[in-house]
């Protein structure tokens, strides 16, 4: 009898009876796994996040991230990592050493930088400008969220989903509203996966057939103006260095993200002499960081934190932020077209929201549907890549003003 009672006490059955929210969270985790595995929504991130959600909501497993209140001590001190591991288990050890410190997002940006080729952007440099207009959703949703009762920090973390950049959204949220990290990360990655749905939707609502038929290569032939690059390798090496320094002077709080992005890009472009480094940055470091980021971000989503009205607002707001950003990019092109003879296809603005290179592929497919000779992929890539810089800059502004 005593044995059976002890056996029952050991199980988590009573916890589920006391708090059925755990079961709901397990269902949500399983649904996210379904999205990642079957629907192939950004599986590299969504699968670890989803599994982290499941681990965190197995009561008694000690794999859920605990509130910072349990970590903070008096006098501005915190528990140290050894104490965190002993008191709260390995998932909190991971979360507080790798995520809460703001460490992993810049590390992932280093890997992304080492995977990014700035070539398409350099060849169509003017289009890079539309990466700015496509940050509109960030700030519009920020305003809307404040109107709905979010604090400024929470609203900024919600808005940054409109940057369409996972690590940037995570980094900003860590700095401003860590209690919303789970839903914001999931919204960011889910909507990135839904870009093939969201872009056509916004384009259909805002662009005329005539605009979508604007033929980028014909325009280039009609109004040739582009600088020819005589030594691409030298330009590609100089570009991240100069850019990094100048941007950082204007938005210093973006240095951890943009600095690491451009460092990764630099070691990529230097090539063979530092190939060991770029292999590590894009290989073991990036992959390891992705696993631990995913698991521990997912593990922040315990029933208590997630089952909150704000989560639904994040789901809705994140979608709006995406849509408004795409709208901003399109409007940026339309306004420009009012003043220039050399017209730009508005699809090259829609791709300003990051989500490299998926946004460009989607935009290209739309253009080809209207005119099968209108290959605009290379043009879209320019604003697409500059959108990464744009959202990191926007994040820097938000962090600088609100932290």
């Amino acid at each position: 009898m005593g044995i059976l009672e002890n056996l029952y006490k050991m199980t988590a059955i009573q916890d589920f009876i006391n708090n059925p929210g755990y079961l709901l969270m397990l269902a949500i985790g399983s649904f996210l796994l379904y999205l990642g595995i079957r629907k192939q929504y950004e599986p590299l991130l969504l699968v670890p996040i989803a599994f982290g959600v499941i681990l965190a909501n197995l009561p008694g497993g000690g794999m859920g991230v605990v509130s910072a209140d349990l970590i903070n001590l008096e006098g501005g001190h915190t528990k140290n990592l050894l104490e965190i591991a002993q008191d709260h288990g390995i998932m909190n050890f991971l979360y507080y050493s790798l995520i809460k410190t703001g460490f992993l997002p810049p590390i992932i940006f280093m890997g992304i930088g080492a995977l990014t080729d700035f070539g398409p952007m350099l060849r169509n440099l003017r289009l890079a400008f539309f990466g700015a207009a496509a940050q509109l959703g960030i700030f519009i949703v920020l305003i809307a969220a404040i109107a709905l009762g979010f604090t400024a920090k929470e609203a900024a973390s919600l808005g940054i989903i409109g940057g369409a950049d996972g690590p940037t959204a995570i980094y900003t949220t860590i700095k401003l509203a860590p209690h919303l990290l789970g839903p914001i990360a999931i919204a960011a990655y889910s909507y990135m996966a839904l870009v093939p749905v969201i872009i056509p939707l916004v384009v259909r609502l805002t662009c005329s057939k005539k605009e979508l038929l604007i033929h980028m290569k014909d325009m280039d032939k009609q109004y040739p103006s582009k600088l020819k690059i005589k030594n691409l390798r030298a330009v590609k090496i100089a570009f991240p260095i100069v850019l990094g320094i100048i941007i950082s002077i204007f938005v210093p709080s973006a240095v951890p993200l943009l600095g690491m992005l451009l460092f990764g890009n630099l070691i990529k472009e230097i090539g063979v002499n530092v190939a060991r480094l770029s292999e590590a940055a894009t290989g073991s470091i990036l992959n390891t960081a992705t696993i631990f980021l995913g698991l521990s971000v997912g593990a922040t989503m315990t029933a208590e934190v997630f089952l909150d009205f704000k989560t639904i607002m994040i789901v809705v707001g994140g979608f709006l932020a995406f849509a408004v950003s795409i709208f901003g990019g399109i409007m940026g092109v339309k306004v420009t077209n009012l003043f220039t003879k050399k017209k730009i296809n508005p699809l090259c603005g829609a791709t300003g929201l990051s989500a490299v290179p998926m946004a460009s592929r989607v935009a290209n497919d739309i253009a080809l549907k209207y005119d099968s000779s209108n290959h605009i992929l290379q043009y879209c890539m320019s604003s697409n890549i500059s959108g990464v810089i744009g959202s990191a800059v926007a994040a820097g502004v938000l962090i600088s003003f609100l932290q």
Partner: protein
Amino acid sequence: MNEMGIALELLGVGMVTVFIILALVVILGDLIIRFVNKFMPEPEKVSAAKSTVSVPEINSKKIAAIVSAVSKVTNGGGRVVNIEKL
């Protein structure tokens, strides 16, 4: 409303900053290209020789040839995990 004031200011500051920065990206990129075109128009030969080393031009046909060669001599036991251009 104070929070809303901040929000509106952020809309202003944020969008202006992003526009300035991406304008700088365009301008700096242009300047770098012009600078490089003027002062180092050709990939310098020393560096070029070295840099070709860095872009392993092993095309897929060659890979297929290698893979099949490997399979043959190893009777199916070997696999080419990685081929690096030296």
